[in-house]
C-alpha cells in the first residue's frame, strides 16, 4: 500500500506530475477485453499519454472521480496474455505491478478487466494476478453480449467463490461504471487478496482450477456472434476475402492519390494566404523574410500534411477498431512469412504511407525485436505524404499528359510506378535483412480475431489524434528548426550587389544572392559529387534543404528558379522546369538532358532517406543511433546508384 506521508509532487522523465497520497489503480487484462473502453469511461477526457523510462511503450494514465468526491489515478497497462511476459509491453505491465518500474509509484490495487464471453480463458490469468497479493476488483465486460449469446455469468456469484468484488460492465453503454466506482470508493472492498495458496502456480493446474470455478458459476456462450460469423464467412473467404482485401487496399491508396493532392493544395493556399497577409503588414526586409520564408514556410511544410495524414489514419483506425485489421494480418501473413516477417509488419507499413513517423511507432505492436527492427528500417521506403508534392511537380513538368490505350493516364502510371518501386524495394531489403544481418528464429506468430465491434467515437478520436499529434510534435519541431536553419543559410551572408548584376534585373540579383549564400556556396562545393546524376548546384542545394523535409525541395526550386514572379506558384514552376532544370546542356538534346535529370531526381527521392524527423524517431524507437545512421547511409548509397543508372539510361535511350 502506498504510504501517506502527505502530498508530494514529483516529475520523472516524460511522466505526469502526481501526488503521492492519491490512490492508484492499474487496469490489467488481455488485449480485446474492453479495458481501454473502460479506462475511457472512467477517466473521460482526463487522460494523458506519456512514456515509460527506457522503453518505447505508451504510458496511459488518467484521473477518475468517485462518488465520494475522491479522485483516483488510473493507469491503463498494456494488454497481457500471461504474467510470464513475452513482449516488451507485457514486461512493462509486470514491472509496474511489481513496483519495479522507475518513476512509477506502486499501485494500490488492480482492476482486472475480463471479457465475460471469454472468461474461460481469462480466469486463469486472473488467478495468476491474484497471486500478487494486491487488492483486486474484477470488471466483467460485455455482459450484454454473453447473455445475447445464450451464456450466463453472475458477478456476485464470482464474488462469493473467489472472494473479490466483481461487477458486470457494458462498456459502450456505460452500464456498471457507477457500481465499479462505488466499489472503489469503499475501503472494505479493497483488501489485499489473501488466498494465494489456493491458486496453483503451474499454468495447466491453474486452468483446471479455473474450470472448476467456471463449472459452478458460468455457462459459456454460443461460439461467435452472428455478425462476426456472417462477416468472416465473406471477409476471410479464400476468394471473396482476398477480393475484399484488395478492394480495401485499393480504396486506401485511392484515398492517398485522389485526395492527397487537393487537400495539400488547399492547405498550401491557406499557408500562402497567411504568408501574403504578413508580407502586406510587415515591410520588406529581413524581418519579413524570416517571418514569411522562414517561419511560415517552415510551419507550413508541416501543417500542409495534417488533413491528409488525418484522413489516412481515420481509415486505418476505423479498420483497426472494427476488428478488420487483425483479419488483414491473417490474410497476408503467409506472404509476409516469405520475407521472414509476419502479418503485423504489413499493418505497420500501411501507416508509413501517411508518414514514416507514426509508421515506425506503429511497429511497437510487433513483439519480436528482430522483426520489429526490420520493419522499422524499411519503413522509409514506403512512399510517404511528403514525397507526393515532389513527384507531382516533376511528373507534371516532365511526363506528358498522355493516355495509354485510351484508358490509362501516363502520369498516373508513373506515379503508381514510383509507389511500387518503393514498396518492392522495401520487401527486398526486408528479406535480405531477415536472411542476413537480422536473421534468426523469432517469437512465433499468433493473432487473435476479436468479434467485430462498433468502436466508440471517443476511441476513434483517440486513435486518429495520437498519430497526428505525433507527426505534428516530432516532425513539427524538427522541420521548423531545420527550416529556420535553412532560411539562415540561404539568406546569409548578404552580398553587395555589383552594378553589372543589378542592371540585369531582380531575378539576376536574387540568383546572385542565392549563389553566394552559405547554402549556395555549399551546393557549389559538393556539386561535382552529384554531377554524374545530372544535378547542378541548384538541385544540390535543394537536396540538402530537403533533408529537413522532402517537400522543401519544391519550395527551394521555386526560390531558385524565381526568374519571374510566376515561378512563385506551382503551375509557373511546372512550366519553367523543363527548360530550367538543367542549364548545362543547351541546344539540341537539351530536353533529353532535362528529362534525364528529372527522372534521376525522382528516383533519388524514391530511395533516399530525406527526412531528419524520421532519423530522430528511428533513433528513439530503436534505442540507438547506429540504426538511423546505417539506414541513412544505405539508402543514400542506393539512391545514388539508382539515380546514376537512371540518368545514364535515360540519356542513352533518348540520344
Amino acid at each position, binding site marked *: 500500500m502506498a504510504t501517506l506521508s502527505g502530498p508530494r509532487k514529483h516529475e520523472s522523465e516524460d511522466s505526469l506530475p502526481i501526488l503521492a497520497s492519491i490512490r492508484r489503480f492499474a487496469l490489467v487484462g488481455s488485449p480485446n477485453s474492453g479495458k481501454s473502453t473502460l479506462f475511457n469511461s472512467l477517466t473521460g477526457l482526463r487522460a494523458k499519454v506519456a512514456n515509460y523510462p527506457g522503453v518505447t511503450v505508451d504510458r496511459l494514465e488518467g484521473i477518475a472521480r468517485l462518488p465520494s468526491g475522491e479522485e483516483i489515478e488510473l493507469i491503463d497497462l498494456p494488454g497481457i*496474455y*500471461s504474467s510470464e511476459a513475452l513482449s516488451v509491453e507485457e514486461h512493462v505491465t509486470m514491472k509496474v505491478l511489481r513496483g519495479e518500474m522507475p518513476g512509477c509509484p506502486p499501485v494500490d490495487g488492480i482492476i482486472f478487466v475480463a471479457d465475460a464471453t471469454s472468461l*474461460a480463458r481469462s480466469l486463469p490469468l486472473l488467478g495468476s494476478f491474484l497471486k500478487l497479493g494486491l487488492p483486486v476488483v474484477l470488471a466483467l465486460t460485455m455482459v450484454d453480449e454473453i447473455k445475447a449469446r445464450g451464456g450466463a455469468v453472475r458477478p456476485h456469484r464470482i464474488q462469493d467463490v473467489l472472494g473479490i468484488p466483481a461487477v458486470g460492465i457494458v462498456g459502450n453503454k456505460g452500464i456498471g461504471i457507477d457500481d465499479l466506482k462505488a466499489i472503489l470508493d469503499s475501503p472494505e472492498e479493497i483488501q489485499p487478496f489473501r488466498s494465494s495458496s489456493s491458486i496453483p502456480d503451474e499454468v495447466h493446474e491453474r486452468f*483446471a482450477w479455473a474450470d472448476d470455478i467456471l463449472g459452478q458459476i458460468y455457462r459459456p456462450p454460443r461460439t*461467435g456472434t452472428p455478425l462476426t460469423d456472417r462477416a468472416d464467412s465473406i471477409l476471410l473467404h*479464400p476468394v471473396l476475402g482476398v477480393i475484399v482485401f484488395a478492394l480495401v487496399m485499393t480504396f486506401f491508396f485511392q484515398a492517398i492519390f485522389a485526395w492527397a493532392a487537393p487537400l495539400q493544395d488547399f492547405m498550401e493556399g491557406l499557408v500562402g494566404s497567411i504568408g501574403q497577409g504578413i508580407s502586406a503588414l510587415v515591410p520588406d526586409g529581413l524581418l519579413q523574410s524570416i517571418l514569411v520564408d522562414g517561419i511560415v514556410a517552415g510551419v507550413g511544410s508541416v501543417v500542409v500534411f495534417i488533413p491528409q495524414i488525418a484522413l489516412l489514419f481515420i481509415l486505418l483506425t476505423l479498420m483497426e477498431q472494427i476488428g478488420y485489421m487483425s483479419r488483414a494480418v491473417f490474410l497476408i501473413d503467409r506472404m509476409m*512469412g516469405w520475407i521472414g516477417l509476419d502479418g503485423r509488419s504489413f499493418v505497420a507499413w500501411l501507416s508509413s504511407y501517411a508518414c514514416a513517423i507514426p509508421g515506425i511507432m506503429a511497429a511497437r505492436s510487433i513483439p519480436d525485436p528482430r522483426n520489429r527492427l526490420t520493419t522499422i528500417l524499411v519503413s522509409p521506403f514506403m512512399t510517404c505524404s511528403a514525397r507526393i508534392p515532389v513527384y507531382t511537380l516533376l511528373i507534371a513538368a516532365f511526363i506528358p499528359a498522355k493516355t495509354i490505350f485510351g484508358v490509362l493516364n501516363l502520369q498516373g502510371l508513373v506515379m503508381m510506378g514510383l509507389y511500387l518501386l518503393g514498396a518492392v524495394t522495401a520487401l527486398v531489403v526486408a528479406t535480405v535483412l531477415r536472411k542476413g544481418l537480422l536473421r534468426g528464429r523469432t517469437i*512465433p506468430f499468433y493473432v487473435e*480475431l476479436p468479434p467485430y465491434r462498433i468502436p466508440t467515437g471517443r476511441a476513434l478520436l483517440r486513435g486518429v489524434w495520437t498519430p497526428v499529434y505525433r507527426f505534428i510534435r516530432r516532425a513539427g519541431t524538427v522541420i521548423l528548426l531545420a527550416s529556420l536553419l535553412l532560411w539562415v543559410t540561404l539568406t546569409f551572408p548578404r552580398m553587395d550587389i555589383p552594378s553589372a548584376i543589378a542592371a540585369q534585373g531582380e531575378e539576376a540579383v536574387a540568383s546572385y544572392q542565392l549563389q553566394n549564400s552559405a547554402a549556395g556556396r555549399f551546393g557549389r562545393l559538393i556539386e561535382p559529387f552529384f554531377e554524374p546524376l545530372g544535378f547542378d548546384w541548384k538541385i544540390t542545394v535543394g537536396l540538402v534543404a530537403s533533408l529537413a523535409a522532402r517537400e522543401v525541395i519544391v519550395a527551394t526550386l521555386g526560390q531558385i528558379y524565381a526568374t519571374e514572379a510566376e515561378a512563385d506558384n506551382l503551375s509557373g514552376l511546372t512550366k519553367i522546369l523543363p527548360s530550367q532544370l538543367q542549364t548545362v546542356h543547351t541546344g539540341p538534346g537539351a530536353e533529353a538532358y532535362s528529362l534525364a535529370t528529372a527522372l534521376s531526381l525522382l528516383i533519388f527521392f524514391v530511395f533516399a532517406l530525406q527526412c531528419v524527423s524520421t532519423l530522430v524517431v528511428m533513433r528513439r524507437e530503436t534505442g540507438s543511433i547506429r540504426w538511423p545512421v546505417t539506414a541513412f547511409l544505405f539508402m543514400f548509397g542506393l539512391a545514388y546508384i539508382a539515380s546514376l543508372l537512371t540518368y545514364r539510361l535515360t540519356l542513352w535511350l533518348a540520344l
Partner: protein
Amino acid sequence: MAKEQPIPLTHLEPGQKGRIAAVDPDHQFHHRLADLGFVPGSEICVLRKAPLKDPIEYEVRNCRVCLRRSEAGCIYVFLHAAALLKSK
C-alpha cells in the same frame, strides 16, 4: 472401444472438433500457447484456413486465435468421434 491416439492439430480440417490431449513441451512457444487457452482438456474447433492455407483460425475457450502450421503442429488432439462420422 479402441484407445484413441491423439493426432497433431494440423491433421484437422475446417469444421472438425477435438479435445486437446497435449502440447509438445519442447516447443519454445508452449507457455504462450497455454496462456492462449491451448491446454490439455480444452475443446478446440478448426474454423478456417487462410487463402494460402496458412495460418489457421481456431476457436478455443470461446476465443478465436490464429496459429501457423508450424506452431499448430505441436498441439495434439483427440478428434471427436462425431466429427469423424460426419466427415465420412
